[in-house]
């Protein structure tokens, strides 16, 4: 088998369920016997992306493709899009509302963490249309 495809729907504004998809990905990757450090990095990337979709975009979809040598995570939403990418990538910068911050989210570490823990991060975003985030994490041979 060359590629295993896992698909998850992420509900928007459901802060209690936030993190559920990343938890499921973690369990799946464990069953595949993937290196624990790779699993940890995937879980963090996936969790941050999932939270972003819950907080900013009223949910979206997550697709995880597992191959022998890499894990690809694609997160797609129809949210407001990112208007200033450079600013968004800065640590501590967040457009999250006060309500969301009171729940402990919106520390402005989401995208920086996704960049830090993935081997490649690609963001395609159009204001008013949505955002597509593609992350790749390599599995050492």
């Amino acid at each position: 088998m060359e590629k295993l495809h896992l698909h998850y729907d992420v509900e928007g504004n459901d802060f209690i369920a936030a993190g559920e998809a990343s938890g499921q990905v973690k369990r799946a990757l464990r069953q595949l016997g993937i290196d624990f450090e790779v699993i940890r990095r995937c879980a963090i990337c996936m969790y941050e992306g999932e939270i972003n979709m819950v907080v900013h975009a009223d949910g979206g979809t997550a697709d995880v493709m597992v191959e022998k040598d890499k894990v690809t995570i694609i997160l797609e939403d129809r949210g407001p899009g990112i208007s200033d990418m450079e600013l968004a990538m800065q640590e501590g910068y967040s457009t999250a509302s006060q309500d969301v911050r009171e729940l402990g989210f919106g520390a402005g570490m989401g995208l920086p963490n996704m960049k830090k823990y993935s081997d490649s991060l690609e963001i395609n975003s159009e204001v008013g249309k949505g955002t597509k985030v593609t992350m790749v994490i390599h599995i050492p041979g």
Partner: protein
Amino acid sequence: MKHSVTLDKDKCKGCTTCIKHCPTEAIRVRRGIAHITEERCIDCGNCIRVCPHKAKKAVCDDFDRLKEFEYNIALPAPSLYGQFRNLTDVNQVLTAFLHIGFDHVEEVARGAELVSSLTKYEMESDPNLPKPLISSACPAAVRLICQRFPKLIPHISKVSAPFEIVAILARQEAVERTGLPPEKIGVFFITPCPAKVSAGRNPAGLETPVVDGFFAISDIYKRLINAMKNIDEPQKLAHSGLIGVGWAHCGGESNAVFQGQHLAVDGIDNIIEVLEDLEDGLLPQIDFLELNACNQGCVGGCLTVENPYVAQTRIKQLIQHMPISMNKVSTEPKPPSYMFDDKPLEASPVNVLDDDIEVAMQKYAQIEKLVETLPGLDCGSCGAPTCKTLAEDIVQGLASEDDCIFRMRERMQYLMGMGDADEYLPLPFRRRDEEAEKAEQERNEP
């Protein structure tokens, strides 16, 4: 691994209570009785707690084993003190041991105080220690980490368990006191849980077991109560303080590590949640993490007799009048090496579908597909705890699709040419039927 948790085959009715409550999905029912998968069992004792037929038990030692030795030492766990009504002096309990056949008694609370001071030393002396330091005291939690969170193994404290340290000390001191050779001295741990029995029989970092046997608190309780009634003047045998005895309940161990931020967690499901968060970097900065597989800590062990909440309250009342601590390890120049586990803990992942990732991916896809065809009731009638675990067992060649009674029924009806199997199913399991639902609603709303 020699497990303490085992099955009494004569008592097991093959019901599915235990498989549903096992946190590591280690139990299956086959041919009418439960089977525990050894490499998955972490000896947490949940199955012992929930079995309605008392068919799950912890294998401890027979009291007659005292006869094998010339001099016997009892090592009572601090949780024992929470088991007695109106106890104001722990010496009453300790003296009782000398009346029921032991020659000497040494509190495990003493070991707990030594461990607490060693833990502080460990945290101060090694600046490269990964944070948080995770307590090594609960063997069920340690086994869980080795199975499911191997990345966190380096966080686990290297200090030995309190009962192991006290066992070594008590035997040494008895040799000096009596002149007997070490093998003539019997050292017995009075345990609140089966996990400590398994850990003591298969010590993680020690070459040979340091304890000769184990008695469950629940087994020895009656003997103690009877002996305690006849003690008017208890001997002064206690020499540990509130730090050591406080280890009996969740939070006691953390309180003993004075510096830094601690988090104390009890209950196996809560532990799993916290460890997942720790692994993903979602926990706030903490220095010490105390884990207790049992609710309320060791007082909640499945081999105790008292309700854990009552026992915890009693411990808190008892320690109010105790000195803070009475035992300390000299760390100059270095603490004794036998107080640390040198053998590294090994990762023992049990959930991996196959060593070859491509085969594992194939199996994963098969499982997902199978799950869709199963009823999703998680009824346990197949002997597996959930439809998903049945699917995993099928793919691993350990079960068959026909083990699902609903699938088997459908197949039989199909083979007999009896048409739609749905009609033959009991009501709760039939397909949804909009017309029937409407009729039901109309009946309920006159």
